[in-house]
């Protein structure tokens, strides 16, 4: 009798269906006020590298959805939530002011609409993330503290539909004290040394992979993401 090992055709094998996977939404809220103009090229390159990196990860690419909101004196959704494969790197505009409160508000609207869609179609999803990138002092008619307070409250909500993670990154000239005030102690704001967007997007890429390679009910995720930021050489806690 032939041994089993000589009969490779007998091995277990099978083709799986193309199912949709649990989704994890990351909303990037990017300050594009005039002071960011010198960094814009690096920002776009960082985004490109992030997209390419996540696309190459078979798990992350099927789970990570990204949305991009830019703000100066106008707020624009530059990329509606979509899987990384379908995402196109937007062209950013710049403006004189830094309407951070409105930017965050719009980001939360984008997030809520998407979460509503997940829930309406009963799709499993991870707690969504909002990542703020700014280099300046917020101004504009709305109080950023008030908006941030709402987000902080939702970070600690026991209702799954309200839950959100928020992280702030400050680059050259950012008001880190303010970012500290609007951040949850669990996710303190990080200062990105030398406006190193490349490091920032490397961290983002790594974090999205940590999340997508976990399961939606993993409670240790927030801690892991917070620690991954603290461990980055180009970031520092600075208040």
């Amino acid at each position, binding site marked *: 009798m032939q041994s089993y090992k000589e009969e490779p055709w007998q091995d277990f094998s099978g*083709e799986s269906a193309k*199912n*949709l996977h649990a989704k994890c939404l990351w909303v990037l809220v990017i300050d594009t006020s005039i002071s960011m103009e010198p960094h814009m090229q690096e920002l776009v390159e960082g985004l490109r590298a992030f997209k390419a990196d996540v696309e190459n990860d078979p798990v992350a690419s099927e789970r990570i959805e990204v949305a991009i909101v830019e703000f100066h004196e106008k707020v624009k959704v530059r990329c509606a939530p979509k899987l990384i494969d379908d995402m196109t790197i937007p062209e950013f505009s710049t403006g004189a002011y830094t309407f951070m409160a409105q930017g965050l508000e719009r980001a939360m609207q984008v997030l809520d609409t998407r979460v509503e869609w997940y829930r309406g179609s009963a799709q499993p999803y991870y707690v969504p993330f909002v990542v703020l990138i700014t280099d300046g002092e917020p101004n504009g008619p709305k109080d950023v503290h008030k908006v941030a307070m709402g987000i902080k409250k939702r970070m600690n909500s026991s209702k799954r539909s309200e839950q959100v993670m928020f992280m702030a990154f400050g680059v050259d000239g950012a008001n880190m004290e303010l970012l500290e005030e609007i951040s949850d102690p669990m996710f303190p704001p990080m200062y990105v040394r030398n406006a190193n967007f490349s490091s920032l997007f490397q961290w983002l890429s790594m974090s999205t992979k940590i999340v997508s390679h976990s399961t939606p009910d993993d409670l240790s995720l927030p801690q892991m993401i917070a620690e991954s930021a603290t461990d980055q050489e180009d970031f520092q806690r600075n208040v």
Partner: protein
Amino acid sequence: MNFQPDWIVASSSILGNSHAAVNKPCQDAYWHLNMGHGWGVAVVSDGAGSYAYSHYGSRFTARDAAHHFRNEVYKQGWMKNASLPEEKEWKVCAQKTLFAVRGRLEGFAQQHELSFAHLGCTIIVVIYSPLGLLVTHIGDGRAGYSADGKQWEPMMIPYQGESPGSTVFITLDIWELSVCDRFIESRVIKGPVQAFCLLSDGCEDAAFECWRADKDGLVKDNNTPQPLFLDPNVEALRKMHAEGLTPDQINARWTQFLEGGNSVLKNEPDDKTMILSTKTFRDV
């Protein structure tokens, strides 16, 4: 020569990539008891990801349930009388037996000074026989069967909680008579069955067609066993048996396959458990 149908079974639990990365144990468990004469009990249990001790819960629950459902088969005389219960009778028996499993799990928690809630786990029980299948479950996971060896059907509907991806566990307060039926599904599948499978949710993307978008972009759970996945494995199982591989050898192959037999299995972050069984004939 008298031929009695019997079953070949492949079963395994694999630690998921996400748990391996943070040194968490496998929270899935399974148990299988072959009772002979074509009867047996197969159980899969998946510990709640957010509870620290759910791996103890799933292991205890799978083993305890397998033994007590086997006892029920004897006690109720189903095997002796070569008969399967009607739906109503099975539902009552299944709920009572699961409730008793829950009671012993609570005892286990007290004995080891563990929080009972932290032992939370799902459970799927399949009693197989020459006459058909009895299935009961709490929570999610999937189970399916093929009556004619060609077409596959689901044999349970995974419980989806209010929040997508959430489910219920044996430890929760789901036992009031008024709500029990909502959380504990029990079914009798009468007639010959050629093959069946039961699996934790970590294997569902591989073995089932689940979340799909229809032509209008609406997403829904099709809950359909995937023949392109299951049929070749049933075939392989039969051939391995015919070749004389021992159950241990078959399970070793099955373990290897579940670890990374295709890209979906390889990339799955969650723990993976699957029992696949097919009928064969042997002389007795």
